[in-house]
């Protein structure tokens, strides 16, 4: 069988060596006979010092949020102490169909005291948040100043709210609304 070289292109099932040679890293596995084989379409990455062998994927890997990822989502449901957020994008990841549900608890919204969820976000808002766990549904956190609402809509007329001196004002009806505003709010006065 062909000996794997550094950077060699492989497809699933390709022989990469025997169990005694390397530790299988990302994209490699040990089959029933003790051979290391590739799981993915990609190229071989051998670390001679650590004695690991990996497969670096050529096509974007399946995107699932993991702890620490910063995500963007749309508020789907709001109750007094809980909000459900549909995650549609993970920051710094090439976009593929990402469609997962995140849960934001009132204790994770802000470092300050929050009376009710309706004071910090509303239905339809776009929220920037951090993922806390690796299991679905994903727990979210918006305590950092750059997290929170990045796009909000007026609850009276539906117009996009604009940020002016740390307040969200509706340019049509003049309505002033309360949110946990992110420092990255999109629309400014």
């Amino acid at each position, binding site marked *: 069988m062909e000996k794997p070289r550094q950077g060699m292109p492989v497809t699933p*099932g390709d*022989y990469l060596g025997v169990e005694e040679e390397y530790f299988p890293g990302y994209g490699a596995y040990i089959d029933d006979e003790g051979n290391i084989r590739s799981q993915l379409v990609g190229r071989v990455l051998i670390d001679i010092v650590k004695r690991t062998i990996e497969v670096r994927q050529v096509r974007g890997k*399946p995107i699932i949020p993991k702890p620490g990822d910063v995500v963007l989502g749309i508020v789907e449901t709001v109750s007094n102490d809980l909000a459900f957020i549909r995650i549609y994008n993970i920051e710094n990841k090439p976009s593929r*169909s990402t469609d*997962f*549900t995140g849960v934001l608890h009132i204790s994770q919204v802000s470092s300050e005291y929050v009376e009710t969820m309706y004071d910090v976000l509303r239905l339809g808002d776009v929220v920037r948040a951090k993922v806390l766990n690796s299991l*679905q549904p994903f727990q979210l956190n918006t305590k950092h100043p750059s997290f929170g609402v990045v796009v909000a809509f007026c609850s009276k007329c539906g117009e996009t709210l604009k940020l002016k001196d740390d307040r969200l004002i509706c340019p049509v009806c003049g309505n002033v609304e309360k949110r946990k505003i992110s420092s990255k709010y999109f629309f400014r006065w």
Partner: protein
Amino acid sequence: MIEKPVLIRDDGLRHDGRRPDELRPIKMQVGILKNADGSAYVEYGKTKVVAAVYGPREVHPRHLALPDRALIRCRYHMAPFSTSDRKSPAPSRREIELSKVIREALEAVIFSELFPRTSIDIFIEVLQADGGTRTTGLTAASLALADAGIPMRDLIAGVAVGKVDGVLVLDIDELEDEYGEADMPIGYAASIDEIMLLQLNGVLTLEEFRRAIELAKEGARKIYDQMKKTLHDKYLKIIEK
């Protein structure tokens, strides 16, 4: 009753001029659909199949989600225009069974435990049927999964072996299936040397069965090499330069 056509000619070749151990001309393409995470198009002669893979994604309805691994769902479907008589687009008994056997073959190679509480959805659409649609579909689905970047133990190549007029033949088409004595579709993972799908319709003696398996493995290896080449040409050629 239509008279039985000549399936094995006097010169030992089949009705379409192939040798008994010869495959039909095979075409493959991957990454043909924009909206799917992975996709593939496969042709075995006149049989044409498209496969699309979505996922890992959130499971709907939610209660189907498995806590320790991904849920793998598979839909094998024949387009209404795929056969000579219009086929009702509703899933038939046959399609439901084929969905199940293809799903079980693929479940055996996918590392589903890497994606708990998600689903991987596989759609196989037969555009034109001329025998061997399940094996073509399995090959296409396997390519689409690789294209979607889902970790797998191996690629699966599907191929059918049949017995017509007492001769074991590789990759049978619709005519040979209809008038032949046996039809045995096989899904074979060539690198790890495992048979992932095996069905048998008809009668074979034990000796014939052994020879049929060997013939199928040999044919599947050729298809497997072409699958690897297709993925290679699409994604890995640029790297090598």
